[in-house]
C-alpha cells in the first residue's frame, strides 16, 4: 500500500552567486514497509529530499502527498503536527537530551506527543537491546548505544515513516552494523517504513530499495 508520493518536487535556493537547485524535479513513490537508502555524493540533494519528506523544508514546486493527503507547507505549526503524527527522525549525532536518562528521553517524546506510556518505552528499549541501561544518562553509554536510544526514541510515537540522516556516520563499522541490525529488526517488528541518507555503500544490504541522486535528480531507483 502506498505511503507517500512526491511528484515534480523542486527545491531551489536563491543565493548571491545564483540559484542553487538542490532538488530539481523529484518523482518518488514509497510503499509501506519499504526500507529505502538514499545514496549520492555531497551536494546531490539527499538531505534536502529528507527534509522535504519530513516537512522540515518547503519545496519550491511540486506535489507531496502522504497517506493520500497533501502534506502542509509554509505553515510551521501544521508542518510540526504532521511530523509529530507521522515522522520519526534519527540524527547522525544522536542528539539525546543530556539531562534526561535513556528512559526519560523516550518518555519526553511521548509526553510531547500527548501519549506517555512507560511500558511501551521500556518495550522499545528492549527492542534495541538496552533494557539494562534505562536509568543511565547518555554520557554514560557508548555512541552505538546512544544511537540505539535515538532509534527507540524515534519509534516511541509509532511513526509511519522513520527518517535517518547519516545515522551511522559517527560510528565505527562494527557498531554501524549492530545499529542497522537493530533498526531493521525494530522497523520490521513495528512495520515502519524507513528512508535513510548515507554515503556508506555497505548499508545497501539493510535496504529493500536504493535511490541514487545527483545534482538534485534521481539517477537510479532499484529494488534490492
Amino acid at each position, binding site marked *: 500500500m502506498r505511503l507517500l508520493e512526491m511528484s515534480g518536487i523542486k527545491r531551489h535556493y536563491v543565493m548571491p552567486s545564483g540559484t542553487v537547485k538542490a532538488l530539481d524535479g523529484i518523482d518518488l513513490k514509497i510503499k509501506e514497509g519499504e526500507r529505502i537508502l538514499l545514496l549520492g555524493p555531497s551536494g546531490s540533494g539527499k538531505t534536502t529530499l529528507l527534509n522535504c519528506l519530513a516537512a522540515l523544508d518547503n519545496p519550491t514546486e511540486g506535489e507531496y502527498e502522504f497517506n493520500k493527503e497533501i502534506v502542509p507547507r509554509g505553515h510551521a505549526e501544521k508542518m510540526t503536527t504532521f511530523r509529530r503524527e507521522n515522522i520519526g527522525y534519527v540524527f547522525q549525532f544522536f542528539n539525546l537530551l*543530556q539531562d534526561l536518562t535513556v528512559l526519560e528521553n523516550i518518555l519526553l517524546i511521548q509526553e510531547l506527543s500527548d501519549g506517555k506510556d512507560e511500558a511501551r518505552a521500556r518495550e522499545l528499549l528492549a527492542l534495541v537491546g538496552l533494557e539494562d541501561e534505562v536509568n543511565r544518562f547518555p554520557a554514560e553509554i557508548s555512541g552505538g548505544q546512544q544511537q540505539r536510544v535515538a532509534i527507540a*526514541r524515534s519509534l516511541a510515537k509509532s511513526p509511519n515513516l522513520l527518517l535517518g540522516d547519516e545515522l551511522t556516520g559517527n560510528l565505527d563499522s562494527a557498531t554501524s552494523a549492530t545499529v542497522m541490525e537493530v533498526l531493521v529488526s525494530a522497523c520490521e517488528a513495528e512495520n515502519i517504513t524507513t528512508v535513510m541518507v548515507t554515503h556508506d555503500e555497505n548499508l545497501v544490504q539493510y535496504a529493500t530499495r536504493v535511490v541514487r541522486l545527483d545534482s538534485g535528480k534521481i539517477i537510479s531507483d532499484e529494488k534490492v
Partner: protein
Amino acid sequence: MSMLLTKRLARSLWRTKLRLSAVVLMVAIGVFAGIAFGAYANSVTTLYDDIYDDDEEGLNLPDLWVENNAGNWNESTAENLCQEIRNQWPDVELELDHCEPRLVTSGQLFSSDADIGMVSAVWHGIDEGDVNKVWIPNHDCCSGRLAANDSEIVIDEHAVDALNISVGDTIRISAGAGFALNYTVVGIGFHSNHLYFTAEGALLPAQPGTFVTGYMTSEGLEKIANYSAGSSNQLLLDIVGTPDSQDPDGSGLTTLKANISAIVGEVDESPASIYDRTGVDSVEFLRADVEGAMKTYPVVTGMIAVVAGITIFLSLQRLIQSQAKEIAVLRTLGVRRMSIMPGYIIAPIFIGAAGCLLGAIPGVLFGAPAMISMYEEIIGIPIINPAVPDSMVIQNIAIAMAVVFLSGLRPAWQASRLQPLEVLRGEHEIRVSSRALQKLTSRMPATVGLTIRSSIRKPVRLMFTFFAVGISMLIFGTMLLMMDSMSEMFLGGVEERQNWDVQAYTIDGEDEIIEWADENDADYELMIVFAGNPANDSRQLTAYGLENVVTENDDSMYLVNLASGELPKSGMGVPEVLIDEGINHFLGWKVGETHSLEFGTKTVDVKVTGFTKGDLSRTVYFHRSDLSGIVGLEATVVMLQLPEGVEVDDELAQISMGIDVREDSLAAFETLMEQQEGMFYSIQGLGILIALAVLFNTLVMNLAERDTEIATLRVLGASNNRLGLMLFGEHLAIGLIGGFLGCVFSILGTKMMISSFVQWGMYFTVSATTSTILILIGIVVGISISLTPFGMWRIKKMDLVAKVKDLSQ
C-alpha cells in the same frame, strides 16, 4: 597579540549587540549614578565646611552649648557663668575661644494673609554675634543685612516664599508671653540651628507657611518677649579649632562637658543641659546625611559595576564556549596561549571604557546638577559653589574599570587553557547530569524534570546570575524597604500611636494651657520632653515623661511601640524606663539592667524594663511623675485633643512657647515623600532595569545553548506551545529561585547597609512586610516569565533546516 584574533573577537561580540549594549549601559549607569551622588556629597560637604567656618564668610559654629531648661539667666548670671567657665577652663589641650550668652525663644508671626494667619516661630537674639552668626550668602536666595536695632529682624530664607516676606516688609510678631510688635525685615538668610528647617521637636522639614525663624538683636528679642536686658538661655562655647564631636572621648569633649557641667552647677541651680554639635538636630542631621552620601556613592558605583562585571564574565564565558572549536583549531595550528588571552582581556576594557565615557559625560553635565538642585529643593539651602572634583570622577571610573577588568581575567584564562583534543572530540561538552537531581525529579513528568534540570544545568552561571539579580534587587529593595520603614517610623508614630491634635510647648506655663483647654472643652495630657545624656557620654538623648506609658489605650494620646520587655511601673525606688532599640544598639544596655543618665547637672539611675522601636533619635520613656521629680518640671508639652470646630487661636499661641499641629506633621511627611519620590522611583526603576538586563542576558544564553535540544524536539514534532510551556516553567523556576534569593539578598543587604550607616543621632532598622517580600519576589518572577515570549519568538524564528544541517555535521 594578534590583531586579527582581536578583530575576530570584536566581530563575535558585535553579533550580540543587544547584550553588549546592556552591559555598556550598566557600566554607564553605575558611573553616572556614582558621579551624581559623589558631586552631591562633595558639594554639600564643602558647603557645610564653608557655612560653619570661623571666618568672615562662615557663621562660626560653636562646639558646645549650655542650655537652661527651666527659663532664662539674667545678665549677671550669664556673665558669671562665662567668667567661671573661662577661669576654671579644665582642658589644657582644648582652648576656649568664645563664650557668648544667647537668647532663643519661641513665638508667633501674625501673617497679614488671612489664609495663613498665625505661624509658629523661633526667634534668636544675636547680640555680639561672634559665634553662630546669621549666614547671608552672596546668592540669589538671600539679601539684606543683619539686624542693627531693636525693631529690625532677619527672616530665615526657608520661610519667606510661603509667607510672602521680602526685605523692607513690616511683620507683626510676638514672643513668649510678651507683646505683639512690628519689626522691619532687613535681611533674608540662614542660621545653623535651622539649616534643616523643622519645627520644634519635629523630624521632618516644616510645611511651607507653618513655621518661621528670625534673627534679631538681643535687645529686640528682649523687648518683644518682655525680658530684662541681658537675659539669655544658652551659652555658646567656641573652642579654637574643631574638636571631633563624633569621637567625643578621643577629642576630650566628654570630659570637658562633664567638667563644664560641674562648673555650671556650682554657679546656678537651674537644670541645664550641655551638649556638643551632635545635640543640635539640624547640624547633626545634615552631617549624618552627608556622611551617608559620602559612604554611599562609591558603593552605588561598585554595586552596579559588579553587576556589569558579572554580566561581562558570563557573556565572555558563553562566547568562549561557542568559540571553543575555533580556539581549539587555532591552538592545533600552533597559536600560543598568550596570543589567545589578550583579546578576552581587552574586550571588557573596551566595554568598560565605553560605559565610563557614556556615564561620566552626562553624569558631570546633567546628573550632578540635577542631584544638587534636588538637594536644594528638599533641604532648601543653596549650594554656593557646586563642585564635581576630578578626583571623584576618576575614583568612580577607576572603580568601574577595575571591576570590568577583573571580570575578563577568568574567561581569558579559561580560553587559553582549552585543550584542543578534548574540544575537537567534543569531550568538553560531555557531562554527566546530577544523579541526585535525577532521582529527585524522576517521579515527575519528563517535561517537568527536563525543565528543572535545564534550569540549574549551569550552576555557576545561575549562582552568578542570582548574585547579580540580588544586587539589582538590593538597589530596588533598599529604596522600597527604606520608604516602608520611614512610613512606619513616622506614620506609625504620629498616625497610629499618637492621637493628639496639637502639642503646645511650655516651660512652667502648663496651667494656662490647661485653662485654655478647659475653656474650649479640649482634652489634654501633660508630657515632659527633656534633653539628657548617658552618664560619662556627651551624646544627647531625649527623655519623654508620659502620663501613662502604655502600648494600647484609647485614653492615652501618646502610645509607645514596645519591641521587647515590659512596660515600666511608676514610683519605684529606681525609676523604671523604656529605652529605644538605638540605645541598646549603641550602648548595649539590656532589659533588667540599671544605668545612669544625666540631666543637666543631675545624675540619676534608671532601670531598663524594655525596648521600644521606631524612634529615629535616642529616646528614654519615663512615667511623667518620675521624670518630673528628676528635672523639676511638671510639663514641657501639653498634648491637646480639640473638639470639632475648635482650632488653635491667638490666645493659645500667646501662652505657648511653640505649637505643633498634627495635620502639619503628617502633611510634612507627604511633602517629603513627594519631593523624594522622583529619586526613589528612579532608583527603583534602575534596580528593575538592571535585574531585567541580567536575567535577559542569562536566559538568552540558556536559550542559545539549548538550540540543539530545542531543534531536536522541534524536528521530532514538539509543538511551539509545548516548548513554550517548558520555557515558561523554566523561567518561572528561575524567577522563583532568583526572586527568593534576591529578596533575601535585598533584605539582608539593606539591613547590613543601614546598620553601617546608622549613628547615634539617627538610628533605624528595616524590616520587610509580607507585601514587600511579595513585591521583591514578584518583580523577579515577572521579569523572568516576561522573557518567555522572547524565547518562543526565538524558537519560532529558528531555521530548522539549518539546525538539522548542524545536527548532522
